[in-house]
């Protein structure tokens, strides 16, 4: 049934959210963002399956492409941040101009 897929999606989203809030490393925070993207993709696909409509799958395609773009830009930002300041923890970044 649809509620078990939605429960799976909610569980994975919550675990990704917990990781994003709790972890200090910037790369692991980006990985938790990917977990949250995947959870939402599962929920889109389950609505598409049980609703009998292909639009949900096309939304998942768009979401995957946007996630790829987000990962590229986010990792570039983290890379240049580590190169400039030498810090890769989120709670040690205090000044805006490194």
């Amino acid at each position, binding site marked *: 049934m*649809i*509620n*078990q*897929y939605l*429960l*799976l999606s*909610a*569980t994975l*989203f*919550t*675990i*990704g*959210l*917990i*990781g994003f*809030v*709790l*972890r*200090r*490393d910037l*790369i*692991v925070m*980006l*990985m938790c963002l*990917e*977990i949250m993207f*995947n959870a939402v*993709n*599962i929920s889109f*696909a389950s*609505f*598409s*399956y*049980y*609703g*009998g*409509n*292909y639009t949900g*799958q*096309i939304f998942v*395609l*768009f979401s*995957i492409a*946007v*996630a*790829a*773009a*987000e*990962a*590229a*830009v986010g*990792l*570039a930002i*983290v*890379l240049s941040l*580590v*190169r*400039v300041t030498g810090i*890769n923890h989120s*709670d040690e970044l205090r000044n805006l101009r490194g």
Partner: protein
Amino acid sequence: MSPLSIDQIFFIYFFLSLSLLSIGVIASRNIIHSAFFLLIFLLHVAAVFLFLNAEFLMAIQIIVYVGGVLALFIFAIMVMNIKDELKHRRFVKFAGSGFLVSLLFFAVFYVFLRNIRLETSKPLTSDTNMLGSLLYSYFLLPFEILSLVLLIALIAGILIAKKNPKEDR
């Protein structure tokens, strides 16, 4: 209690393993171990797409996430060359309150999702032809905009991650 069908047994397996793998991404101390947990997590999500009759999404998930995004993560970890990660603590200072707020979030989710049902006609079959024709007719403009987004992300990634020539001197 009625006996479980083979679908339900597989679904329970995927539920438990996806939860454990994502907890492994969070809890592992070494970043490269998190990346490999994420690899197996993404493959399991591809299998869940196969449950939902979305074969094209399964292929795209493996090609784009495992072949693209995860390779990018591992490249970034290797370029940054983090050695002293094992000595640092993993979680932020206010981890307990963050955990409680996230559990509250999940409780609200659970209250909403517990009794949901969808009055459906019939579950859809796997049809990649239909998906392609829909993507190139009705969703043509978002598709083109998406290509522009990817191009801009590519250029921005190169420009941001490039070495600043003033620092080398």
